[in-house]
């Protein structure tokens, strides 16, 4: 009997230490010791006691997988313990000129809560250089991939309250291999990140814990970083795949970053991103060869907000919500020049209760805001925004359950008035009717003009001035005020508007959402004529970073009539879309001209010879335009000044069917627009003709 008791005690005594060992460090978060660590070596490689402290060693110290005792004495000098309960801090003290940390492998997942990785501590960081919070000063410390290595993720964050500040991260992507890889990113935020691929070398995977909201890292902050571009601002030799991937995290904050040049989206959410705050970032020129949308939201995004960002010159939508759950707030952003490669809406909304206000949405080859019909999306309030230069409606509600390819990209155009209650079930924002003016023109009175019309009863009708001419649904450029429709469904507004003004209106109802705009009505003079208003010169916005105000210089001498000679085409080899060295010379000339004259914009028309199928050739011509565009981007030409227009085999250069004729057909033509009086001779050149 007694013997049995002893055995029992022994078993308990043996298992208790075992239990304590199996508790992963992430659970025993409070037990983690905090250190203040200074990274002094830009090298990377296996952890070993040596002269300098690397970032890998610093992260392992913070994670508790490395103790200071395992370091050399020289390294221990850079580690100071912090009082218990305080998160670790990683600062940088790299020798000047060696501030690029080139990784050879994935850094360990960050599981230390409240860890701060602060690149602004590096000597030489000029915090005052930032003129605009959207364009933070150039970081000094950059984190990238060693040449010849492949690293899928820059930083992988799995702990609460981690802050990443003042770093430049670029070059994180994967190459083709036997299986596909999980999406790489500069910064990947998720509890238990998935392995990069499913090769036998990858760690064995237990089931994901993505359903458990408690395990998701909370309150991660990404600020003042340059993602996707090195500190010198050049296009990196190896572009990153995605910027910030908020895969499974709550209350993440992404603020004051410059996110540029990614193959995929700048910010993409995965399974859960509740409470995501994206504010005051400059998101420029992303989506070059992958997910084209600048901010792509998927999964749970309840109470998220996208505020005061500059979203410019990305290849798809500025913001695309794909089958999300929960509402987001999109306020104060400048969303312009997007849709460089895909003609999509500037903002595409799916889901209910989103709010879009005080944004500027413009220069988009598609509508401003599109609301999907499926899954049925309701109560989206889209008010107080300004629009310009759209190729579509300012607000486009998809109707009749339209779910074609175009409907998920560009919307379906103006809707007819609701003729049945059932329209509400198959139209975005429950088919709220757009207001209609009683006439296409209103005669101005002595001081004011009275605009009357009909709208859904009880809705609030926002009146807008229209600046652009020609199209009955031109973009809404400036708000003129709000009136409420009567219970009978009529509205009337008296405004002091000069004759010649053109107006439109949208209706909003808290129960349903915001409508499409009304067809434009004009204000006539008292004698019934429509005078032409003097055109106000529009200062076209750009995506450029603010520059310090230039020192006052003497006014330049009046410009002589300039005559420029610019080649207007480059040629390609049969069935190829890569840029030959000869074509690169031509492209360099074009890039030089575009850099010299920053107002020039260009359309890249891709063409092929007439062989192979039309669909194949269309794709091939698109690849050719893209290759030329990407080359120019690398030469520093801003992406917002170029548009891809593939023509396939529809517009041949020549008539015959010989080798020379086909070689002439295989080309990209550069069609310059907005010349501003510049006298340019466009030259057809054949220096780079490639015969088969």
């Amino acid at each position, binding site marked *: 009997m007694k013997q049995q008791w002893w055995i029992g005690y022994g078993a308990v005594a043996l298992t208790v230490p075992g239990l304590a060992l199996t508790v992963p460090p992430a659970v025993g978060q409070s037990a983690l010791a905090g250190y203040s660590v200074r990274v002094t070596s830009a090298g990377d490689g296996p952890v070993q006691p040596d002269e300098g402290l690397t970032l890998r060693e610093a992260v392992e110290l913070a994670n508790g997988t490395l103790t200071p005792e395992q370091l050399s004495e020289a390294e221990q000098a850079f580690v100071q313990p912090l009082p218990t309960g305080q998160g670790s801090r990683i600062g940088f003290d790299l020798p000047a000129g060696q501030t690029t940390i080139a990784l050879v492998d994935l850094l360990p997942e960050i599981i230390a809560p409240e860890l701060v990785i602060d690149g602004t501590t590096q000597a030489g960081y000029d915090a005052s250089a930032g003129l605009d919070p959207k364009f933070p000063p150039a970081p000094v410390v950059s984190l990238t991939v060693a040449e010849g290595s492949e690293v899928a993720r820059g930083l992988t964050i799995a702990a609460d309250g981690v802050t990443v500040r003042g770093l430049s991260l670029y070059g994180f*992507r994967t190459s083709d291999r*036997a*299986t*596909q*890889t*999980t*999406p*790489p990113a500069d910064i990947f935020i998720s509890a238990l990140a*998935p*392995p990069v*691929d*499913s090769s036998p070398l*990858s760690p064995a*995977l237990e*089931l*994901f814990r*993505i359903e458990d909201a408690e395990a998701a890292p909370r309150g991660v902050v990404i600020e003042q970083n340059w993602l996707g571009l090195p500190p010198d601002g050049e296009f990196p030799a190896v572009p990153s*795949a*995605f910027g910030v991937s908020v*895969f499974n995290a709550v209350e993440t904050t992404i603020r004051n970053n410059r996110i540029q040049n*990614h*193959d*995929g*989206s700048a910010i*993409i959410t*995965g*399974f*859960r991103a509740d409470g995501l705050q994206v504010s005051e970032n400059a998101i420029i020129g992303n*989506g070059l*060869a*992958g*997910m*084209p*949308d600048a901010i*792509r939201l*998927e*999964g*749970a995004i309840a109470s998220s907000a996208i505020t005061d960002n500059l979203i410019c010159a990305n290849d*798809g939508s500025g913001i695309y919500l*794909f*089958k999300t*759950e929960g509402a987001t707030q999109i306020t104060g952003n400048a969303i312009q020049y997007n849709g460089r490669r*895909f003609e999509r809406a500037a903002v595409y909304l799916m889901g209910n209760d989103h709010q879009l206000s005080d944004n500027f949405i413009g220069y988009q080859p598609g509508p401003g805001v599109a609301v999907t019909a*499926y*899954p049925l999306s309701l109560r989206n309030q889209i008010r107080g925004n300004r629009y310009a230069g759209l190729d579509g409606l300012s607000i486009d509600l998809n109707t009749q359950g339209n*779910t*074609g*390819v175009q409907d*998920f990209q560009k919307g379906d155009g103006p809707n007819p008035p609701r003729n049945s209650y059932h329209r509400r079930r198959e139209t975005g924002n429950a088919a709220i009717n757009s207001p209609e003016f009683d006439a296409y023109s209103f005669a101005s009175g002595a001081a004011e003009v009275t605009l009357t019309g009909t709208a859904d009863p009880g809705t609030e009708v926002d009146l807008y001035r229209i600046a652009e001419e020609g199209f009955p649904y031109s973009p809404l450029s400036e708000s003129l005020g709000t009136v409420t429709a009567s219970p009978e469904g009529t509205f009337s507004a008296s405004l002091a508007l000069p004759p010649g003004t053109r107006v439109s209106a949208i209706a909003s109802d808290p129960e349903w959402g915001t409508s499409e705009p009304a067809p434009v009505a004009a204000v006539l003079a008292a004698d019934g004529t429509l005078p032409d208003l003097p055109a106000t010169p529009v200062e076209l916005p750009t995506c450029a970073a603010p520059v310090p105000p230039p020192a006052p210089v003497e006014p330049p001498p009046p410009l002589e009539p300039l005559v420029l000679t610019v080649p207007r085409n480059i040629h390609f080899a049969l*069935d*190829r*879309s*890569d840029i030959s060295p000869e074509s690169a010379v031509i492209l360099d000339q074009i890039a030089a001209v575009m850099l010299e004259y920053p107002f020039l914009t260009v359309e890249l028309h891709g063409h092929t010879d007439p062989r192979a199928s039309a669909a194949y050739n269309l*794709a091939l011509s698109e*690849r050719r335009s*893209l*290759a030329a565009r990407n080359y120019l981007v690398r030469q520093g030409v801003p992406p917002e000044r170029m548009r891809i227009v593939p023509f396939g085999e529809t517009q041949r250069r020549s008539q015959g069917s010989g080798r020379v004729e086909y070689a002439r057909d295989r080309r990209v033509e550069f069609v310059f627009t907005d010349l501003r009086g510049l006298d340019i001779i466009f030259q057809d050149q054949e220096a780079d003709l490639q015969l088969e």
Partner: protein
Amino acid sequence: MRRNQRQLYRGLLFLLALVLSYCLSHAGPPSTVAQAQSRVFVNQATAQFDGPEGPVTVTSNETRVGEDIVPLSIVKTADRAAAEPGDVVVYRLLVTNPSSRAATPLTITDQLPRGLIYVPDSVQTTPLQPTQQVTTDSSLTLTFPSLEPGASVSIAYGVLITPDAVRGDGRNVAQASAPGFAPVSAPFQLTIRPGIVSDCGTILGRVFVDKNFDGQQQPGEPGVPNAVVFMDDGNRILTDPDGLFSLANVLPGYRVGTLDLYSLPGYTLAPNLYRIEDNSASRFVRLSPGGLGRMNFAVTPTFGEEQS
């Protein structure tokens, strides 16, 4: 000139005389040719031979040449126009003798197509009863002693559709004959549907954004609309707004489908971290006859789209 005219008149008169004489000679009593048409030649053969019990004389039936016999009529119907294996089809034949002679004896033959067999003892005849009934698997022969002028006989019988019928043509011919009557036949076309032995299968599938890289669709993993799936036979399938698709009437065997990544810009196939096989760009389904196959495609946001 005048002389020529006179010669012409003379010639015309001669012609007129010829025509008149011909008409007169044929306006007389009916000719012997017309009489022969309504005459009936009855022909009967007799044979005599010396049997063991003295000379025997046997007489054949009569054949009648020249008699204007109204042929027998035969109508064939069934209780359905289409049938599947396992069904019993009830056929009805109605044979009528509209002539003025008795059809003696009357023989009715029914030939079945492949895969149809008679239900034993299912033959019913009214009002006459057959003197002889010969049934094989695929044919039925009934002999009646005589069908009087104006009389009819109705025959009903059941036929079982076996799975073999799918390979036959379903066309079945009944024939009635009697001495002195030209045989008449009536076909009936039955549409054979494969029914329970159909070997076409169905393929179901979905295209969705995989968040946990397990190849299965769970809550929070939305379907991708308008994705294109190509089958090995060239069928092009478009997913619905929920990312689902289905393909009916697929021939059984090994079927391959692949996702056209060009139809979903921004996405590529997701890695499957649990099953190596599901990392393939295409799905391979062994579709058993009448079976159900599944082709799920998990996708994930992409970068670095191929630049050739």
